């Protein structure tokens, strides 16, 4: 047995142990509040490792907790009418035939859910009065939550989810337009030195520093645009930053993104798997992401990323 196989079985056992009776997972090991994000990562990692009854129960949880408007809430019991995790849920349910109607309403919600700068009034405000943050208000993507502006991570996940729509027909005619605006938004809001921060690259005239996980997630959504200078700069930043990354979440995402661009990630993977106390990580999404990354190619398939 290789050390990876042993780690894999330990991770599966730990994640399985954390599954709640309702089929979902909580964000932290110490919590009993089932949430959509950790459930999606856990289900994706299990689907990649070996489909089990745990995955089926997770799918049932997701289907049970979809909002009437087609979106997904952050956690069970949340009273908000949708959130960015909808994109993640749509990606998680992609191979489940029984989820097709749920996914169709989910995609419909995602198509109609946009950052506030998509509206003419806010475009005008950002263009004339509110110019502390540098960005082009003509481009827009997806917000974390309704009625706020677009941010990098929710936009990247929405783009990854929308890539899975088989055609731009049957109510999805607007999909190419939204995808195009979203890609433009990501390219516009990159940090001047390469990579992505949470939202914008320049605030009060000062370039902000990129974040490795935000950069990696943006790069995963832009694999079809690898010739863009911004994408190449982001890739260079991530290659450089990944060498020193000491946190499993960011390192795992860096591995996924670099692998998606054809980079050799073996040494990074070795470092990830030899990190101490991996099983003691409280954050279940991180734990599941580490399991997912043990098989990078499969992980990219699960996320719908074309390498």
């Amino acid at each position, binding site marked *: 047995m290789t050390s990876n196989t042993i780690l894999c079985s330990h991770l599966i056992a730990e994640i399985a142990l954390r599954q709640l009776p309702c089929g979902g997972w*909580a*964000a*932290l090991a*110490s*919590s*009993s*509040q089932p*949430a959509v*994000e950790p459930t999606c990562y856990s289900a994706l990692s299990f689907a990649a490792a070996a489909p089990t009854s745990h995955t089926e129960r997770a799918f049932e949880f997701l289907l049970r907790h979809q909002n009437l408007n087609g979106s997904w809430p*952050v*956690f069970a019991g*949340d*009273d*908000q009418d949708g959130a*960015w995790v909808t994109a993640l849920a749509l990606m998680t349910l992609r191979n489940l035939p029984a989820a097709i109607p749920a996914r169709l309403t989910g995609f419909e919600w995602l198509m109609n859910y946009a950052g506030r700068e998509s509206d003419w009034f806010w475009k005008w405000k950002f263009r004339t009065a509110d110019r*502390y943050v540098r960005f082009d208000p003509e481009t827009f993507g997806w*917000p*974390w*939550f309704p*009625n*706020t*502006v677009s*941010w990098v*991570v929710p936009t990247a996940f929405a783009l990854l989810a929308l890539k899975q729509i088989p055609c731009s027909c049957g109510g999805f005619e607007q999909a190419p337009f939204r995808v195009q605006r979203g890609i433009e938004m990501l390219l516009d809001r990159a940090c001047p030195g390469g990579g992505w921060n*949470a*939202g914008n690259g320049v*605030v*009060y005239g*000062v370039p*902000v*520093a990129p*974040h*490795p*996980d*935000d950069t990696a997630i943006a790069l995963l959504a832009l694999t079809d645009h690898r010739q863009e200078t911004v994408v190449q700069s982001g890739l260079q930043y991530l290659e450089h930053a990944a060498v020193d*990354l*000491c*946190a*499993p*979440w*960011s390192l795992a995402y860096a591995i996924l993104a670099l692998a998606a661009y054809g980079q050799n990630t073996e040494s990074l993977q070795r470092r990830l798997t030899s990190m101490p106390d991996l099983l003691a*990580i*409280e*954050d279940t999404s*991180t734990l599941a992401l580490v399991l997912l990354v043990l098989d990078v190619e499969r992980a990219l398939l699960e996320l719908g990323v074309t390498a």
Partner: protein
Amino acid sequence: MSLTRRDLLVGGTALAAGTSVSAPFFMPKYHVDRRPKRSRVAILHAEQYSQKLDEVLATGLRLFPIDVRGKRVVLKPNLVDYAPGDAINTHPLLVLAAAESFRRLGAKSVAVAEGPGHQRDTQLVLSLSGYQQSLRDERIRFVDLNRDQLIRIPLRASYTGMESLWLPRTILEADFLVSMPKIKTHHWSGVTLSMKNMFGIVPGARYGWPKNLLHWKGIQESILDICATVPVHFIIADGIVAMEGNGPLNGTPRSLGKIVLANDAVAADAVCARLMGFEPGRIPHIHDGSRFLGNVSLGHIDQCGEPLDGAAIPFQISLQFQHLCSALPTE
């Protein structure tokens, strides 16, 4: 001139409409006046971050009649993001010294809790800023407030117009909550001190990064609603090395050599603002906070420790907040 019934009817209707429109502007936006009769603030001298902070804090805490025996103490530092050589975060040595002090005072448990506002990878911030190893060595539990279990709480003020917030269980179940801000300027709110530090309890998983919904609802308004709803029991502000200029992330470190302790968040922030060379009454959340949360007036604050000398040179601050500087005449 005689009034007809029609005149009275029209006048009465206009008066009622006018009252219903204008009343909300004159009604207090808080539900309860929680101001203590007197507040206590201590300014302690500390030139640098060292193991001696244990001693400094223990001496400072003796100036306050606090009893944490058998209580669950939660320390809420300001941990936003990490940049090498910068003064973004509350220094881990100060947090460790506080944890040690409260343990010695008989606390049932001491945990450190924060929901970083900018960086989603909490473990990365903890690791790079030196928290992870320090907390592990001292066996202090850390709770990621961005992902903790949430409970919906009705707000006890209505500055934002929101009726409730989902807040972390760890914070709501704490018996003794300590806000431990870094003394910094802030390009959206003027300053970030113990009241603004409470933004960190709002979970990113529910409200976005960087706490996006609250930015839309108004930063000053959100600070007031949060502080009205979640009482802070004690304040330990890190001003050993503070930050001026384009805070909270891209400012410049400024050696102040002070730690500020207080039992009232508004009083603590008023004193910190004065130390920065700012007039606290010109900072909207401190000004409005002084109506129902705590004291700003020096006449209601028992000042101990070092004397309150405003910064000889006020902290640098972005252009739109220049009016905060004490040297400017009051309008």
